[in-house]
């Protein structure tokens, strides 16, 4: 049994109030080691989700895979207590995170929050009546990125890691940072842009996870600004960024590519087709700065490499699909030249 995994679960359970916490800590180590999420929903049973499925808690300390009337339900007080602990008893400190729907706590665990939004001109300015809390357990798996690291070590270009939610993208990036900043990576100068504070999980400036000896961490910085800050101040050889989403972030990466730094990014995409349908992904590939894309397996097999496709192959697919659609590309040029 991986005792480190069990400790991580116990650390995540500290986010909950006394009543729920005592029941979670009583779970068997086999469940704790494989748990991925702890979910509290107001008025409904508390669940622990993982590769084993969904487990329900009971007052006696028993856990079961069947939801029965005796399953422990999260009350409004439990949710409020959990919310207060997650915010460090200071909602104002985590205002922007709460409006974005999540707060990252000590240990790098991301706590998702949902409730009733308070909006001002279409912008979420606050959340009231928090109704659900989802504690995603952060884990370190040393060696999980060994297969991906080979692609990084051999190729000169950057790497994109694509996968659906809970496929282990952040876990792989974390281990890649450790390898790049360690002996295997030649102690390369690596900067981690850790906007959600999940990769390194720094507390008082000290990384809570092993991210290598020569890694610098920019915690909480918006990605679009952090790239330029990293380039100007840390002279990195590699920059690691988790979950590139907006075009603004892609443009920041493009600006950074001119400096010769290698980028290792993760992006949401459940399949090749999904990846190719995203304009941000196409734009990144077309920069020519990425050697390929690693597609990870889904939540049922997190952090496992399903497929590696070179950038050339993907660019070819992009070209062919635009040609087939009769879009801007070779089709129209040919028609023009013969006409």
């Amino acid at each position: 049994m991986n005792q480190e995994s069990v400790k991580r679960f116990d650390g995540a359970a500290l986010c909950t109030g006394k009543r729920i916490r005592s029941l979670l800590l009583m779970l068997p180590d086999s469940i704790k080691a494989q748990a991925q999420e702890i979910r509290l929903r107001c008025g409904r049973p508390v669940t622990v989700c993982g590769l084993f499925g969904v487990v329900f808690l009971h007052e006696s300390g028993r856990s079961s895979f069947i939801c029965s009337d005796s399953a422990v339900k999260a009350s409004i007080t439990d949710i409020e207590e959990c919310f207060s602990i997650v915010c460090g008893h200071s909602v104002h400190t985590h205002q922007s995170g709460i409006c974005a729907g999540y707060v990252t706590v000590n240990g790098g665990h991301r706590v998702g929050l949902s409730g009733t939004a308070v909006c001002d001109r279409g912008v979420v300015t606050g959340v009231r009546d928090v109704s659900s809390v989802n504690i995603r357990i952060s884990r370190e798996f040393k060696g999980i990125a060994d297969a991906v690291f080979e692609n990084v070590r051999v190729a000169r270009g950057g790497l994109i890691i694509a996968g659906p939610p809970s496929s282990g993208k952040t876990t792989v990036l974390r281990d890649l940072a450790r390898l790049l900043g360690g002996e295997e990576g030649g102690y390369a100068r690596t900067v981690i842009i850790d906007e959600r504070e999940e990769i390194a999980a720094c507390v008082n400036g000290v990384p809570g996870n092993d991210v290598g000896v020569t890694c610098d961490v920019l915690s909480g910085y918006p990605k679009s600004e952090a790239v330029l800050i990293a380039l100007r101040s840390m002279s990195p050889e590699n920059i690691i960024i988790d979950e590139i989403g907006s075009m603004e972030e892609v443009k920041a990466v493009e600006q950074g590519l001119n400096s010769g730094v290698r980028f290792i990014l993760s992006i949401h995409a459940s399949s090749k087709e999904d990846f190719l349908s995203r304009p941000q992904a196409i734009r990144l590939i077309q920069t020519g700065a990425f050697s390929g894309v690693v597609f990870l397996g889904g939540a049922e097999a997190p952090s496992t490499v399903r497929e590696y496709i070179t950038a050339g192959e993907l660019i070819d697919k992009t070209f062919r699909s635009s040609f087939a659609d009769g879009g801007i590309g070779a089709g129209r040029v040919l028609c023009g030249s013969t006409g």
Partner: protein
Amino acid sequence: MLTAASVLAGFYAGARVKLRCETLEQCTALTSFFASLISHSDESLPVIVHRACQSGNFNRLGFLESVDSADLSEGFARVWSGCVERYQPCLDLQSKNLLKSFGARLGKTDTKGQLELCEFCKSRFEYSEAQLKKKCSEQIRLCRVTGAAVGVLLFVLLSGG
């Protein structure tokens, strides 16, 4: 000896009133301290309480050190309220309740809400402080004069008897 005891009692009562004035003054300063740190930094409440203890400006508010060293797993509001009840005996009931409700509402809303809370509590403490200061000088004088008068009367009665 009796005279001395009476005079001392008078002075003691006066000193207690003065202590209450100073405590209220520091309560007012505490709300400003919280408002300042909440608006200028993103620090959490436990950190702000720790800074308040370290500043040395709140020596009359003994409950702060208890809050600083307490386990907050029971909830910040509950810990704050308990510490005010146990370690702040010199405040009157109204001021104590105000201080408890200040702690109960801290950390529950966004920055704007927190600053409004601090402003509200600050104005209430300032009002109580002003009322008490007005009576303070009169009470101190009254206590001292009464103490001295009782002492003299006792001396006269005893020496006469």
